[in-house]
């Protein structure tokens, strides 16, 4: 098991003052080293307070984001993820775009073995949109995993509680 000096890796967690950015800023994201690289394991991050704006009307949108990933070397630190997700507050984003944008930012940050981002957005005009982004690192095992999860998407339709 590898445990690097996490206090040196992270600047936001445990900081006595936190600055909230109200414009999209992927530089807020921070990582720490995966101490269990010999194992494949799932990490799920639920963000129930995600909000952004409709890029056309400027009306606010709300939703839950579910991030599932299998880490490789780097893992996203959750406070930095919180600050990053808050930074969308004044950003105009279609639901489909923002889920893909977050997925791509997390892939660029962590280079995980597998990652998916699911957006469960509140209804607008009686219609709720639930896009899913997924990524695999190109290894056959994770390609098969992504294919399996892609083909089986929405066999159990989700509802926001």
């Amino acid at each position, binding site marked *: 098991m590898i445990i690097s000096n996490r206090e040196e890796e992270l600047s936001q967690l445990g900081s006595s003052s*936190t*600055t*909230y950015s109200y414009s999209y800023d992927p530089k807020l994201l921070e990582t720490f080293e995966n101490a269990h690289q010999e194992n494949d394991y799932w990490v799920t991050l639920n963000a*129930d*307070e995600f*909000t952004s704006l409709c890029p056309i009307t400027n*009306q*606010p949108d*709300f939703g839950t984001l579910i991030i599932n990933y299998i880490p490789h070397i780097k893992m996203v630190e959750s406070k930095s993820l919180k600050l990053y997700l*808050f930074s969308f*507050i004044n950003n105009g984003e279609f639901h489909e775009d923002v889920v893909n944008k977050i997925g791509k930012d997390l892939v660029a940050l962590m280079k995980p073995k597998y990652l998916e981002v699911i957006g469960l957005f*509140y*209804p607008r005009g009686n219609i*709720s949109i639930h896009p899913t982004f997924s990524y695999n690192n190109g290894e056959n095992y994770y390609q098969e995993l992504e294919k399996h999860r892609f083909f089986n998407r929405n066999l159990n339709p989700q*509802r*926001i*509680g």
Partner: protein
Amino acid sequence: MKLTKVTIQKNSTIEYSSKELLFLAKSGQPYRGSLHIYFISKGETFDLLTFKKYITSLRSVTLNAEDIAYTIYKKIDDAIDSKKLGVIVDLTSRGGIQQRISFGKKFKPVVKSNIFQV
């Protein structure tokens, strides 16, 4: 942001709810919560489009959490004449602590099991 008055029947009991309340804490961190409003009409209510715009305008307003129910109560009370006005705000947890703030008439809000329930 002014609430536009709408003339309606007297003595209707009116409840409005929204799960989409957002305003800023003094720290800068957004607060999220559900808003519940209750009153009995004295012949008027407010236009919901202007009310939605008012709620949306709170996204950039900084408040102590404990003042949010009064702030919304005052906005409504200044705009329309009503009886037994009450406002409840249920905030999502911060640091493991859940807050419910209320001002005015006590009432039991209608709570739906999920946002798809009509």
